Structure formats: C-alpha cells, structure tokens
C-alpha cells in the first residue's frame, strides 16, 4: 500500500517550500504542539487518569473502600458500621501512607491565634469570617490543612486495563 502523507505533514511541507526556514520552523513547532494536544485528548480517560484509578484500586485492595461506599449503610447498626470502618480505616490509612507523605499545610495548633503575612499563599491558606482590611491578618487556626509533601505513585503496566478496580474472584474447588 502506498504511504499516505497526512494533512498536517503536507501543510508543513508546503510551508517549508514557500517561506523562510526560520519562520517555517516556528510554524511547524506550533503545529506539532497542536497535534500533541489533539493526541492527548484522543487518549482514553482510563489512560489519562490511570494513576487515579490505581489509587482507587489500592484503597479497595487494602481497605475495601469501594465495597464500603457502594453498599447502602442505612439498614445497619452503628456496631456493624464500626466493625467495617476499622477495615476501611486500617487498610486505607496504610495505602495512603504508601502513596503519599502528608503533612499539615500550616504550623501551629488548631484553635491557636496565628498571623497571616502579606503575600501569603492563597492556595495553602484560606481566609474565612470577616475578610477585610490589609494583611498581616490575625486569626484563629480552625483547620491546619493538609499537603502532600511526597508523592510515590507506582509504575503501572501498559498491559493492564486500569478500569478494573478489583477483579471478580472465582474460587475453584
């Protein structure tokens, strides 16, 4: 079968022929960027968000989180929910610590008064209450926030479908 020259390649070729080399390079770069963006968009969502699915699978594997959330809790006693919550808490906590190092976003004890300096990081610190005037602000630390200081996502094999959060288990006699 004869090799087909794609539309973008033909366009690039055309540009190279009719304009100066430097300008052609600039245009080509822009076109390639466009193409990269297109192919990224073309990636299926489970590949694009594979690490999120892997995290979900780990929370299920270690702490049965998906089982827990998928079940209707209405008909169960606090005692039963408590027993199950221990599995979820113990397992998910272990998984969380394997994937991330998590630390409070601010220093200081909750309930204490802290000073928010000018030029503060508005993503790490959220002001509530009477938000007015000029920094530095003084306020009570209600929640110290959380920051992932280290992220250790595992290597994921290309051979596997990340949509499988948990396989069905069939026990052979």
């Amino acid at each position: 079968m004869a090799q087909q020259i794609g539309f973008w390649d033909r366009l690039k070729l055309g540009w190279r022929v009719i304009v100066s080399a430097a300008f052609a390079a600039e245009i080509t770069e822009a076109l390639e960027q466009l193409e990269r963006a297109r192919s990224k968009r073309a990636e299926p969502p489970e590949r694009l968000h594979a690490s999120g699915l892997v995290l979900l699978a780990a929370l299920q594997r270690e702490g049965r989180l998906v089982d827990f959330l998928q079940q209707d809790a209405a008909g169960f006693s606090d005692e039963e929910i408590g027993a199950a919550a221990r599995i979820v808490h113990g397992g998910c906590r272990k998984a969380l610590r394997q994937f991330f190092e998590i630390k409070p976003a601010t220093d200081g004890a909750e309930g204490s008064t802290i000073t928010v300096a000018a030029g503060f990081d508005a993503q790490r610190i959220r002001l509530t209450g009477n938000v007015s005037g000029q920094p530095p602000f003084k306020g009570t630390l209600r929640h110290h926030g959380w920051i992932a200081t280290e992220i250790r996502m595992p290597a994921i094999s290309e051979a596997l479908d990340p949509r499988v959060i948990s396989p069905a288990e069939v026990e052979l006699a």
Partner: protein
Amino acid sequence: MAKRVVGIDLGTTNCAMSWHDLNDALGEVVPIPQLTAPGIVEERPLLPSFLYLAKEDEFPAGALDTPWEKKATYAAGEFARGHGAKVPTRLIASAKSWLSHTGVDRTAALLPWQAPAEVSRLSPVDASSRYLMHLAGAWKASQNTALDSEDIILTVPASFDAAARELTMKAASQAGLHNVTLLEEPQAALYAWLEKSGDRFRKQVNVGDVILVVDVGGGTTDFSLIAVTEQDGALQLTRLAVGDHILLGGDNMDLTLAHHLAQEKNLDPWQFTALTHGCREAKERLFASSRLTKVPISIPGRGSALLGSTIKVELNREDVTRILVDGFMPEVPVTGLPQTARRAGLTQLGLPYAQDPGITRHLAAFLTRQSRIAEGRAFVHPTAILFNGGVLKASALRERVVAVVNDWLANDSGAPVKELAGADLDHAVARGAAYYGWVRHGHGIRIRGGTARSYYVGVESAMPAVPGFVPPVKALCVAPFGMEEGTQADIPPQEFALVVGEPTVFRFFASSVRREDRVGDMIDDVARNDELEEVAPIETALNGEPGKLVPVNLQAAVTEVGTLELRCLEKGGPGRWMLEMNVRSREE
C-alpha cells in the same frame, strides 16, 4: 565512582539489602521494587520471601513483569504473599528452611511442597536464587550498576552447616552473583550494633564480656555467643559458639493468637489468613503501648458486601501475655530442656518444625550444651545480651528473656546481664553485613571465629562381618572447631584408599560442641555419641583404571568466602580430587 559493599539478608520470611561505601563509611538501606498487585510495581523496604508460581493465563500478559524481567511467570514479594494465601498450592514459602533440611534432596524440584502435578516446581536452591535475582534487579534499577560488580556479603543463619552454606553459595552463583562472601546473621547483628555505637562501644563492653545474641526472626530462632577478648592491648571479638537451627519464630506467634481467636468462629482459610495478619498488627500495637488493654480486629467477609459480613474479634492484653510471653518465653529453670516428643511411626515429610515453642527452653539447652566453655559452671554465663529480629521489637518479650536469663544467673551466683540497645531490628542484619564488608577492608573491629563446628568423616571399623550387626562407624576429625577462613589443615596420614572408577562415599558429621578435637582425632562409635550430627554425605569419583586402589591423604580447607572444602591428595603422586557434599536425601 567509589566501590561499595552490599549486604544482603536472605531471610526466611523477608529479605533486605543495604550498602556501605568503602571510602566515606556511609551506608543506606536499598528500597526494593516489587509487585504489590498485578501490573503494579512499588518500592518496599523489605522483600517478603514468597514466590508465587502462576498458572498460564492466570493473569493478563505482562501483569507479573518487573522493570528487569519481562514475560515473568512468577512473582516474588508482597503480591506473591498476598495472592499465595488464596492459592497456597502455588506458593513457595520458607525456602531457606528447606535449604538446611537434611531429610530431603535439596537440589530436587520440591517446592511448593503441596503443589498439583502441573506446577513446575523449584528446588530450595532455585527458589533462593530467584530472590537473589530479584534483589539484583532491584539493585540495578535503583543504583544503575550491576549487583555483581560490587562486593556482596550474604548472611546465613549461624546454625547453617557446611552443606547449607554450600547450597547458599550455589543459589548466589545461579543468580549470577559471584563476588559473594558469607556471614553469620548473629554476627551481622553485632556488626550493626558496632556500626551504630561507633567508638562508644568500648564503654559498653569490656574484656571478659560474653555477648549472647538472640535472633528471633519470622520463621527461625538462632543463638550465638561472642566473647570480648584482648590481644596486644586491642579489643577483640571472638565467636564462641552457635546454636542449632530452630524452626520457630514470630509467624508461630501470630498463628497461635489466630487459632486462639478463631475458636468458635466459622472462618474459611482466607479469613483465617486475614485474622493472622490482624493478630500481628494487634500484637504489635499492644506491645508498643502499655496503656492499651485490648485491640479490636475486624475480619472482612470475602464478598463485596462489607457491612453485615464483617466478623469482629478482640485481642486483649492478658491473652497476649499468656499466649506469647508465657507460651513462647516461659519462666523455666536452666535445666528445663525442650520437649522433643518423638513422633512415632510414619512422619509426614516436611519441614522439621520445633516441637517445643518455648524459646527460653531452647536457650537453656544451648547454654547448658556448651558446657565446655562454661568454666566449670552449670551453663555458660553471658554478661551481655543483644536482640535481633522483628519479633523482638516488642519490649515485653525482650524483658522476659532478660528476666529469665538473670534468674538462671542469680541461681548460679552470676551477675545480671546488660542489654545492648540494638539498631533497627528489621534491617540490622543487612546493614551489619554491609558494614562487615567495610570491616573486611581493614576498618573497625572484626569478629573472629572461624568454623562454628568441627567436622568429621565417617570411617567404618574393620571387623569381621557378623550377621545382624552393623559395624560401628568411627569419626575422623578433618576440620577443627574455629578453623579460620583462608586456612587449610592436612590430616595426619591415615590408611585411606580410594577405589578408582566408582564413586566413593563418606559419611560426614559435624559437632557444635566438641571444641577440643584436633585434626586427625578419632571418635569411636558415632551412633552412641549425641554430640555429633550427620551432615550430608560427601562423595567423589576418581577417573582411572577401574578397581585400582589409590592411597590418599585427606585435606580440609575453609575458603575465603566461608565454605568448607575437602580434598583427597594422592600419596606420593600428583592426583588431587575434590570431595563434594551430596545434599540429596540422606539414606538412613
């Protein structure tokens, strides 16, 4: 780049790896990438010593691959352990204990022991070599050099005899590792302590001290005695004695707790495994915090419904104290020897697990058995104690051992022992091994000791044949206790003649207590001497004219890497033959 030494702890239940730089005395534990689920490779500080042999098409293609091995048909580590609990017939565990099991052919494809016929089994040597291959891959992935280009110190239990050490070397060479030196685990633990203590160690031990190393791992318990001596004004450490291989450890404790809690509960095997894991965690929490009186354990059902199918049990402090502290570390007199209920008739072949769970009883047996170094007392008096192994992170267990030993000492008018504060108990052996590599290059203090056993070949007594009477076998000492690495011993001329053209087999014995025997000493009647244990037979086949007799001398050598070699030298001729240990099943 500076040369490094790598310490490898090839454990019964967990492997660890650490390195030490030869120039600036720095070292670090190496994280080990491993499968934690199909297709997911994550780093962990330890590699669980479990191997899962997958069925064809059991997992999608590539699901068991690691960065260094494609198209893998097996998994090692965390996923192998977890999935193997649900498919026990394809799981290899405790390969290391099989390496030292004299009742089976250790080079035969035996494992998994209960596998169906379609599984292609591995020998204990192959399985050990797979773990080493995994560690080599992990090293390459994180350090970008080949593991074999570094010096490697591989640890073995002090209780491993010459044959088990030889097999460990074989596993290493199968894994492509050649610059390997062996080190006993309790010594490695002491090296880790020396590294951690630095120069302060001289303040903590003095000449005349006898350090008892108590190493309780996941599957095995190992004891060693190391003396602090002085030579030319410098402190020296000398390994005095090692104990027998005891298949008893932390896993037994978790199982015992699980059996206790599972009473009157209807658990399937998978839930029982979950309960065992739960018991381990609950036990660790109870030991870690004296304020806790009980820890709840939830066991999930196997289906997707978690609510309503979860079984809740509680582990309380009294149970842990009664079952673990009193059960495994009972307060016994030093004369309280382990019970060895002799199993009558047919015994299922399998690992020779210790029948008495009382670790303190095994310790009493060890200290009293070494009567030759007890200086006239009822048992060897240790003056210091160093703990190793993850189980002994629990201070309640350490305190009990110290209390029991002090009780023995007090009754024999001895002074109490001091506890040497150990390092990170999970990684001490690997770290200590790497540190030993550095010591071998002329730094720090080295533990001397040589062979932990004396070795003997069996010689049949020449006597007229009497029907129904087996002629007694005498034992000729070929390697004395404490023979150092890199030395050899010529055995005084004996009338040995080898038959050419057919295999010659010698029975081979070892003793961990007979320290006084010199090369050439003969011990009468092996069968009546309980100080000798039979190791694997040794054999050689000499080429030449069949039927001809060649008079020979025997020679023993301890190699630099720590294995024992036996040779036959032709009397007045150039002939030289190696005797090889036959680790196939011992004939009774």
